[in-house]
Structure formats: structure tokens, C-alpha cells
């Protein structure tokens, strides 16, 4: 039985449809991440799950029970908000205990819960402070503590880390992951940060314009994207989309890419990644998707032979990130991004020889942006 099931949910504000037929099922103990650009309806979906906004159509089930028309209080859900939404007039302790007090939990149990949560999140010394006396990171912890004090069926996190600075964000990300592993709770977590999504999720739902485009494990969403949007949204730097023409026949498809010279670059399409759909697109333009890490440098000094088609081109920009090197290299009229190891000697303006690893390439239909192979 699913911890949470959403069936054909729609939500309209006036005449604009913000959620368009969302269906989703989450297993107990699962960490599901909703990811998508700002304004795609993530918060609206969260508010609908929490019961803060009624849905226009569809059903919502928690633990098998229809809760579509239950109030937030009746749903057994706790939520962490982006702005933390702490009660400014109450101390940290009172903030944490408020939900238990309202639910008439006996005092002894309440104190036990505060002690447990405070230790878990290391906020024991802050218990008697007011929210205004806390730093951003501390407020974030208190907001989580407030949710963890009760033990509801589902936790909702709406961009809980987006108000923290970069370093703290990474730290808290790890802590949330640890918490989930330790407590085994069911979590629905919203973010617009695809790295957060990749690192935390059991499964990721990629949303756009009120629709779920793909629902799958981080690996599926990253390596096997359903369409151009998902492919481009997940991964940083983004996937390269290269205009190509499909040629050949089943068993020996090729992609030819115009690189400005006399001869196009010809990339053989791996036979094991063929799909039946390809045959209808022979001779037609397609979009080839290659991630920056699908390229490697052909380096005589290193001596080892790398698999893949050779691509001779010119480096235009070099961006060292420390761990590795991001290059912009020319590809005909346009440029693509390539990720190389830190040992690379690439210099802007100089020629460079790259190998293209086609075994993880993806193909899209340029008009509908849907996946071909």
C-alpha cells in the first residue's frame, strides 16, 4: 500500500490551470523529490497534499484513506517551509511543542519529544531562544525540529534549504539524508536544485508547467531522460544538444553532424541503443544529446587508447572548477561544453582532440522534443 497516492489531481486558480492531471504514488519510507523550474506548480502540489489548498479535481489518499476533503489538521502530515515559518512570539521549545500541545499530547511525552528532537538536530542550547535570536541555519533546524516532533505519516519539505548559503546548504543536505536513513520516514521534498534532487532522492519527479514529465530513480532520470526538457534540466553543466541527421539502416545507424568543414562529423549509433522508432527518421534531422562527461581528451602523453569517435576541434574557453576542467569547444557554428580531468592541458584558442563516447548518448525528436533512442 502506498503511503501517499495522488490520482489525476488538477488545480486551477481562476482561469489558469496550475496542476494538470498529476498522478503519483509514494511508498512508505520513500524519499521522493519534486524538481522543476520556478513557477511549475511544485508548491501548489505540496499545498494540495497538505490540505492547505483544495484541489479542483482528483483524489488524494494517505495510507489508503481518501483525504481529499480533510483539513490539514486531520491529515497527519508535517511540513517544513522555505521561509521556515517559525512562530516569532514563541521560544524554540514552544515552537517545537505547539503541534503536540494542540493535539493534547501529555506533558511528559511532549518533553520527551523536545529532548529527542533537540538532540537529533543539535539545538538543545537554543531551546529557550526566540526565532529572532537565531541564525538562518539554526532557524532551518528548528523548522525541521517542529516537523520531527510529531511523528506523522508523511513529511513535506518545500525548498527547505534554498535560503541558506552554499556551504550550509551542502551540510544540511547531508544531514537530511542521514535523518532519512535513520528514521526511515516518508518524505516528499521540493527543490529547484537538480543537484539536491540527484543526491537525496530515492525517486525524482521532474515537473514542468503543472505536469510530471518523468518519474524515476536519479539514475533513470539522469541517464535515460524522457525528453529534452528533463535531459537539459538534470545535470550541471547542462547536456549538449547537437543538431544531427540520421542515416543508415537498422544495425548500422549513423549520425552526421555539420561541423563547418567539407566533411560532416559522422558518429556511429551503438546497435544496442537502437529503437524501432529510428527507422522512420532516417534522413531526417534529430537532436543528439551528449553530456559534458561523454567526451574525453585524446592525449598522446597519456598513451592509453580511448574508445569513441575522434573529434578534432578548437578550445574557446577553459573553466577550471578545481576537481575538473570545463571547456567550451567549437562545433561548427555553435559551441558545446566538455568536462575533462584536471590534468588536461587545454588552452583557449588551441586545437584539441576529443573522443566522443556514444554508448551513453541520447536521441530526441526536434519538433516534439520527445525521446527517440
Amino acid at each position, binding site marked *: 500500500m502506498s503511503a501517499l497516492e495522488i490520482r489525476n489531481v488538477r488545480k486551477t486558480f481562476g482561469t489558469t490551470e496550475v496542476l494538470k492531471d498529476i498522478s503519483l504514488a509514494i511508498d512508505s519510507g520513500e524519499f521522493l523529490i519534486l524538481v522543476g523550474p520556478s513557477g511549475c506548480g511544485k508548491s501548489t502540489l505540496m499545498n494540495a497534499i497538505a490540505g492547505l489548498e483544495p484541489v479542483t479535481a482528483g483524489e488524494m489518499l494517505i495510507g489508503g484513506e481518501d483525504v481529499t476533503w480533510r483539513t490539514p*489538521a486531520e491529515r497527519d502530515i508535517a511540513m517544513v517551509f522555505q521561509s521556515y*515559518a*517559525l512562530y516569532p512570539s514563541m521560544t524554540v521549545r514552544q515552537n517545537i511543542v*505547539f503541534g503536540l500541545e*494542540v493535539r493534547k499530547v501529555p506533558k511528559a511525552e511532549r518533553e520527551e519529544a523536545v529532548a529527542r528532537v533537540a538532540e537529533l538536530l543539535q539545538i538543545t542550547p537554543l531551546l529557550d531562544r526566540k526565532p529572532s535570536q537565531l541564525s538562518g541555519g539554526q532557524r532551518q533546524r528548528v523548522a525541521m525540529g517542529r516537523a520531527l516532533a510529531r511523528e506523522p505519516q508523511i513529511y513535506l519539505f518545500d525548498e527547505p534549504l534554498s535560503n541558506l548559503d552554499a556551504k550550509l546548504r551542502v551540510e544540511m543536505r547531508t544531514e537530511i539524508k542521514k535523518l532519512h536513513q535513520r528514521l526511515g520516514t516518508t518524505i516528499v521534498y521540493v527543490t529547484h536544485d537538480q543537484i539536491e534532487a540527484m543526491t537525496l532522492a530515492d525517486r525524482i519527479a521532474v515537473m514542468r508547467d503543472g505536469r510530471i514529465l518523468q518519474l524515476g530513480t536519479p539514475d533513470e532520470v539522469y541517464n535515460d531522460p524522457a525528453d529534452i526538457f528533463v535531459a537539459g534540466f538534470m545535470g550541471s553543466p547542462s547536456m549538449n544538444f547537437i543538431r544531427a541527421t540520421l542515416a543508415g539502416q537498422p544495425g548500422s545507424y549513423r549520425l552526421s553532424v555539420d561541423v563547418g568543414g567539407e566533411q560532416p562529423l559522422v558518429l556511429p549509433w551503438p546497435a544496442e541503443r537502437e529503437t524501432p522508432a529510428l527507422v522512420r527518421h532516417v534522413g531526417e534531422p534529430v537532436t543528439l544529446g551528449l553530456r559534458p562527461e561523454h567526451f574525453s581528451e585524446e592525449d598522446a602523453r597519456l598513451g592509453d587508447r580511448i574508445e569513441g569517435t575522434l573529434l578534432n576541434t578548437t578550445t574557446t574557453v577553459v573553466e577550471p572548477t578545481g576537481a575538473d576542467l570545463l571547456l567550451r569547444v567549437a562545433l561548427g557554428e555553435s559551441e558545446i561544453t566538455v568536462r575533462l580531468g584536471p590534468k588536461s592541458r587545454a588552452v583557449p584558442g588551441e586545437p584539441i582532440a576529443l573522443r566522443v563516447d556514444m554508448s551513453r548518448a541520447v536521441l530526441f525528436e526536434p519538433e516534439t522534443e520527445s525521446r527517440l533512442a
Partner: protein
Amino acid sequence: MDNIIRRRTPGARLLRAGLYALLLVMALVYLLPLVVMVLTSLKPLEEIRAGGLLSLPDSLTLAAWLKAWGTACTGMRCEGLSGYFMNSVSIVIPAVAISTLVGALNGYALTKWRFRGANLCFAMLLFGCFIPFQVVLMPMAQTLGWLGLASSTSGLVLVHVVYGIAFTTLFFRNYYVSVPDEMISAAKLDGAGFFRIFWRILLPVSGPIITVSVIWQFTQIWNDFLFGVAFAGFDSQPVTVALNNLVNTSTGVKEYNVDMAGAMIAALPTLVVYVLAGKYFVRGLTAGSVKG
């Protein structure tokens, strides 16, 4: 020290000197009536008739104040303003408390439990701020009659509450708009209902706007004359009406000192409120956002 760098040419200095002189004169002109009132109220009657209005008193006496408070005649009765002062108190306190509370509840419902037509509702309430007192006199008298509240303190309280709600709702609505909705959502998920959220979450952060509302309503209701004269019974007249009667009751000589003392007594509470809480009034008007 102010925080401005000014030109230091002789012309500029002269201009500033002139400016301050002008300001000083204006301030004196503005202050003069109050000075005259205070001085007059402290003089014996003979001195007033003998001397000029502005001369300093030869002998100070509180007799006029005591008379205005305790024995001056207001129409038929000669018991001073004290009773009417208490009437005003017993009108103002419930009226201020109720209108502030209702305004807070209205503002809360209009911003945090947005129902269909909330905006229209607010627009109509806002309209209430612009209805002149005189317009409602007749219908209000009729209504009070139907309710059996004519000529009573409760009736006056009701009138002031009804008239004040437009203003207090406006204050609280505009304040609560800036309270983050997520705070209310969090409380709903914690299981709190409409009134618990109001008492436990919202009211504790409403200090500044409660101050504004109380000061505003207090001065409005205390200083009201028209509703008092129109709707009060013989026993429930507020001090403003009594002051008018005191000044207009002639028993031979015109007792300017008693009149002045009476006026001071009637005006004192609002002055005190301003002095004590004026700065919170200004702060509350500009306050809004609740820092999490």
C-alpha cells in the same frame, strides 16, 4: 547634531536664522491658546475680569479646577464634570476594546482565511471610513430604538463600535497582509484552528497595530460630541456634552476660569494617551513585517 552638511556662507547662515525665528513665532502662536487656557484656569475670577488675558496670575488657585470637577452646573444639575467623565470612561473602554478586537478578527479573516468575496467585503468596510457622522444619525437613532438601546451607555458603545470597525479593520488588515501566510499554514498543519491561530500566533505579534488601533479609537470616541449629544440619555452623557452644557449654562457671571478648567479636564485623557503612547502610534503605523 543633525546629519547634514550645510553651506556655511554668511547668506546661508542668515537664512537659517530667519527660518528658526519664523518657526519659533509659529510655535508660539500655536501654543498660545493652550497657555491662555492653563493660565486662565489657574486664576481667580476677579483677576480675569480685572486683567488682560495674557497676564501672569498674581495668585494661583485650583478652585476653578475643583469647581469644574465637582460643583459646576451643567444644565439643571450642579455636580461638575466628574460624573460625566466617568460616563465617558465607561463608554470608551468597552467601545475601544470591542472595536479593536473585532477589527483584529476581521483583518485576520480577510487576509488569512480568504473566502470568496473577501475583497468586496473589505472594499465595503473601507467605504465605512468615509461616511460622515451626520449621515448615520437618523437611521442609527431608529436602529437603537428598535434594539431598545436608545439613551443608554450600551447604545453609545454600540454606535462607536459600529462606526469604528471600518477603521480598525483597515488597520489590522493592512498589518496582517505582511504576516507571512506560511506561518498560518504551519499552524494549521500543527492542528490549530481559526481562533487558536488568532490567539496564539497572530495576536502576540500584533502589539504595534493594537497600539495604533487603541489610540485612534480612544481619541475618536473620547472626543466625540455628535453621537454623545444625539444618542446619550440624561445619565449617560459623555464629558464632551457636559462641557458644552457647562459653558452654556449661565448663572449670571461668565466663569471663564471654570470653563477653561473644564475644557482641560475633558481634553486631558487624550493628551495623556498621546504623550504616553504617541511614539508607538507612529511606529505602529509604519510597522508591518514580522521578522521571523
